[in-house]
């Protein structure tokens, strides 16, 4: 198994891609802390499923955009697991609108959760990983952060920011045995993308050479690779997992 005996925390793990990442890490042998912001019941379901695989799991509530809440969460995880070997920064929200119509508060909310949240979680976990002299940080960006997307100025700016943050964190922490990489998913079937209307989906399919939407599992497998020893000579990279949308 690729992450046997490792301790992981996945933010925004109660549903969607984060849920699948948490489960796949557990299938590969990891204990997982399941972070959630509001969906306690769904987080508990993920925890139960991980426990049924024979791994340790805990649900930890925290708003990743709040520094105090994040450091309390990381302390909780260290108390329970002893170490943190893998951090997956996955938590994210959308507040889509055309730039001309976008409210300042919608801009702020998305940047706070999707970009500042990655900064805060990374900062909080780095202390533990530096002591351990090892660690894996995987940031979930998005293909729209590479190519842009009309109607998502806030989301795109945050996801592009995550790629820059990934590179910088990778450079700062490389000497301490910590690798930092990003995954940029394309169009993946989740609650978030189910909200898009049919016309948008048809248009998007035309841009996907592999001619299908991705599944959360397609992302989770790549995250596990980046969390495992198999990727030990990679850091600062962004892997596009998008059916070939952007080459």
């Amino acid at each position, binding site marked *: 198994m690729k992450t046997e005996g490792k301790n992981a925390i996945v933010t925004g793990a109660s549903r969607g891609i984060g849920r699948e990442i948490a489960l796949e890490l557990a299938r590969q042998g990891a204990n997982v802390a399941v972070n959630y912001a509001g969906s306690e019941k769904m987080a508990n379901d993920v925890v139960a499923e991980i426990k049924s695989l024979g791994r340790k799991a805990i649900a930890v509530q925290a708003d990743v955009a709040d520094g105090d809440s994040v450091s309390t969460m990381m302390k909780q995880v260290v108390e329970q697991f002893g170490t943190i070997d893998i951090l997956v920064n996955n938590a994210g929200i959308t507040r889509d609108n055309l730039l001309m119509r976008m409210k300042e508060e919608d801009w702020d909310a998305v940047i706070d959760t999707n970009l500042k949240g990655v900064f805060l979680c990374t900062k909080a976990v780095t202390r533990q990983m*530096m002591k351990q002299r090892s660690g894996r940080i995987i940031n979930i960006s998005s293909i729209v952060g590479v190519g842009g997307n009309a109607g998502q100025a806030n989301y795109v700016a945050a996801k592009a920011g995550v790629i820059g943050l990934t590179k910088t964190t990778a450079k700062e922490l490389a000497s*301490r045995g910590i690798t930092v990489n990003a995954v940029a998913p394309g169009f993946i079937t989740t609650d978030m993308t189910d909200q898009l209307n049919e016309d948008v989906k048809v248009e998007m399919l035309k841009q996907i050479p592999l001619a299908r939407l991705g599944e959360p599992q397609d992302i989770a497998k790549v995250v596990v690779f980046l969390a495992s020893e198999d990727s030990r000579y990679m850091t600062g990279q962004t892997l596009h997992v998008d059916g070939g949308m952007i080459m």
Partner: protein
Amino acid sequence: MAEVLERVTKIIVDRLGVEESQVKLEATFKEDLGADSLDVVELVMELEDEFDMEISDDDAEKIQTVGDAVNYIQANS
């Protein structure tokens, strides 16, 4: 004073791989003891553990010499 200095010195010697004789109160971590920025961050983390205290980011930035560290610990522990 002597006891704090002794414990601080031991951590610096272990962490930075310098000789005990180099660890003087006026020695700066970066210039005199060859630490990079990340070494200083780690050093502060170890001091926090050793003396069971929390040093804020603002205060940590002001700790540049061995003497700064010793004084800070004495004033705050």
